[in-house]
């Protein structure tokens, strides 16, 4: 009995939702209703990938990361680039690695040297100048493979890449810039002597070396690597793209948390303002590098067969035929969307397993409730923060790549998915992963249903004519749901934090 009382709101919501769904689909044929359901699950799965990270990060660290949608977008673009033609990444990543490796030197520098204030500002300016020098006249646009390029082929102009010597010069400049920056940043109290110790220092040096080696391998082997990737079967390339997207998200997330968000824990409003600034920056960067128009990604081979034998009559047959669509109740439904649903479910199970079955998960669950107490127990919550941030960001990046064969890549995807993720998180409750799943389900179904309304209109019993609207109304409807939930239960349906 207590179960019903304590979960009252949730049960009422589910009941109301079922009633609404029932009323709304009354006029529809079964295949249409199922199609909407599956589309809703598809969208919901994508929303979940973005929202779960956002929810956990806020639950644990009280940081509302507005740039989360941008991580989704950047993961998508990174995955798309690797899949279509990795040349861009092979030429830019080494520069990024060089800079990061240089900056990582900081705690080691801080132990011996601590420059006076003026010298530090000069060093920072010098580092900035070196960075600008390093990227001067960098042929960015030429390296990008555009949508018109057939996936899996060499970029048209062979000389779109600079000579190896030029690249090595840029690499060296970046490395020096990073080192100078670490001098500018080094201050006595950042030496981390007690927390890092000798073992920590060696692993730091190891990491730096690893980054530099990886960068040089990418530079010297870029032609070979490009051929290898392009020659790979599209499905394998897709898997690589998934990994790269998730990795990009996680890497950027860790960097963001460490470099930008950590300094501002004492000033939470400025943290939020900073993330908003990042949204803007990432948006501009994407527009400058890849252009404002966006692009499509070719469907991986597993989901691309459009021959006579397609659509596949059922799921079992699909495994052999790899059709682009499967017949569901007699109606073709894109097989790739089923894959999206699968990814969402797998991640949900995975996160659940992590949270319930591992020590890290235990720390996270406790930290969502009271991170100060967790710290008082002797656990390094700062490091956990970074890990969780990276995990959430990695999920978002993965979501971006998963979304791309379905929706393509375009700069607007950051803000669009961010907003939907917000709505999901508010409905489901900040800090709760099951809540994010539930919220994603609600929002996904609402959007799918809303799109159907746009297409054919709905006819409620008391209407003489069906009610149609533009897609705008559908998008606005999810916001409306969020407002209602916020007013009735501000902590969300399954929220763990007090609003």
């Amino acid at each position, binding site marked *: 009995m207590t179960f019903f009382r304590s979960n009252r709101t949730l049960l009422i919501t589910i009941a109301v939702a079922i009633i609404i769904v029932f009323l709304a689909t009354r006029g529809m044929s079964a295949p249409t209703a199922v199609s909407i359901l599956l589309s809703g699950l598809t969208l919901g799965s994508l929303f979940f990938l973005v929202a779960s990270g956002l929810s956990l990060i806020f639950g644990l660290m009280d940081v509302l990361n507005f740039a989360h949608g941008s991580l989704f977008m950047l993961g998508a673009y990174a995955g798309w680039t690797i899949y279509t033609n990795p040349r861009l990444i092979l030429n830019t990543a080494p520069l990024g690695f060089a800079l990061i490796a240089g900056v990582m030197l900081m705690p080691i520098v801080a132990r011996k040297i601590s420059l006076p204030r003026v010298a530090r500002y000069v060093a920072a300016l010098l580092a900035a100048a070196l960075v600008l020098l390093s990227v001067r006249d960098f042929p960015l646009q030429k390296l990008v493979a555009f949508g018109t390029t057939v996936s899996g082929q060499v970029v048209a102009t062979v000389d779109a890449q600079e000579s190896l010597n030029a690249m090595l010069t840029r690499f060296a400049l970046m490395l020096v810039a990073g080192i100078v920056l670490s001098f500018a940043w080094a201050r006595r109290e950042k030496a981390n002597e007690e927390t890092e110790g000798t073992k920590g220092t060696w692993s730091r040096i190891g990491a730096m070396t690893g980054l530099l080696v990886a960068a040089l391998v990418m530079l010297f082997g870029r032609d070979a690597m490009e051929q290898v990737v392009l020659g790979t079967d599209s499905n394998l390339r897709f898997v690589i793209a998934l990994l790269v997207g998730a990795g990009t998200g996680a890497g950027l997330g860790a960097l963001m948390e460490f470099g930008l968000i950590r300094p501002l824990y004492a000033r939470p409003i400025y943290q939020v303002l900073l993330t908003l600034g990042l949204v803007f920056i990432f948006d501009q960067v994407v527009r400058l590098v890849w252009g404002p128009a966006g692009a499509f990604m070719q469907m991986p081979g597993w989901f691309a067969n459009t021959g006579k034998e397609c659509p596949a009559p059922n799921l079992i047959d699909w495994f052999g035929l790899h059709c682009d669509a499967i017949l569901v109740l007699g109606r073709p439904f894109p097989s790739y969307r089923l894959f999206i649903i699968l990814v969402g479910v797998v991640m949900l199970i995975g996160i659940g397993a992590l949270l319930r079955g591992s020590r890290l998960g*235990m720390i996270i669950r406790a930290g969502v409730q009271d991170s100060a107490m967790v710290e*008082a*127990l002797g656990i390094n919550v700062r490091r956990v923060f970074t890990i969780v941030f990276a995990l959430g960001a990695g999920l978002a990046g993965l979501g971006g790549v998963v979304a791309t064969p379905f929706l393509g890549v375009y700069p607007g995807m950051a803000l669009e998915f961010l907003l939907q993720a917000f709505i999901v998180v508010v409905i489901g409750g900040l800090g709760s992963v099951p809540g994010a799943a539930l919220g994603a389900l609600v929002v996904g179904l609402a959007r799918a249903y809303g799109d159907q309304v746009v297409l054919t209109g709905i006819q409620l019993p008391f209407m003489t004519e069906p009610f149609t609207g533009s897609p705008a109304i559908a998008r606005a409807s999810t916001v409306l749901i969020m407002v209602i939930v916020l007013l009735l239960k501000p902590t969300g349906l399954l929220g*763990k934090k007090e609003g």
Partner: protein
Amino acid sequence: MPNILALDTIHTFIGQFHILEGISLEVPEGSITALLGRNGAGKTTTLKSIIGLTPPRKGTVKFDNVDVRGRRAFDIAAMGIGFVPEHRAIFRDLTVLENLKLAERKKGDFEKHQGMIFDLFPDLKRLIKLPGGQLSGGQQQMLAIARVLVPDNRLLLIDEPSEGLAPVIIEQMMEAIRTLTSHVTVLLVEQNFRVASQLADRYYLIDDGKPVQNGKMQDLVQDRATIHKYLGAK
């Protein structure tokens, strides 16, 4: 007896507010020392200043003669200090077992100490699978103390353990704390003077963030005027 903890004229600010103005205290190893004072006197802030949750701006905090002021709280705790905060801070959604396992600092801590823990608090064994939020106030207090007994802690900071508990439970808890002192030192904050006087050997009295007096508990018990002035008649 050497001092396991020594504070020297610490000043702690919360935002703009100057909460602690020159608090000093010494806690001999193996003793129970009480920190007394009115509501809002700064007792909780003192504990938080020691563990590093509200680091002092000035002064020194020496644990085992090592100055820990300015270190992160998890660093300080890992040196062997356990914190039992006001209102227990039990993780409501974690089970009793998870609450205890979370407190491990080395693998096997819980196995090593669970005998002692369940001897002190037999009820916890029965409740081991329940989520912390379903425990009563007294049981939560037991769990909060049990939690800091999981790792090898040498100093326990206990904040208002008797708050909101029934007298019978308070007795049980006091008994448990008394048993502990054979291998841990306790710094106890208590507004309930009866509890404090029956547990502690020494006391420090503070008011408005400033030190008032300190000494042996048996002396304070006779000093009705001071008790009345700084602690309200109890």
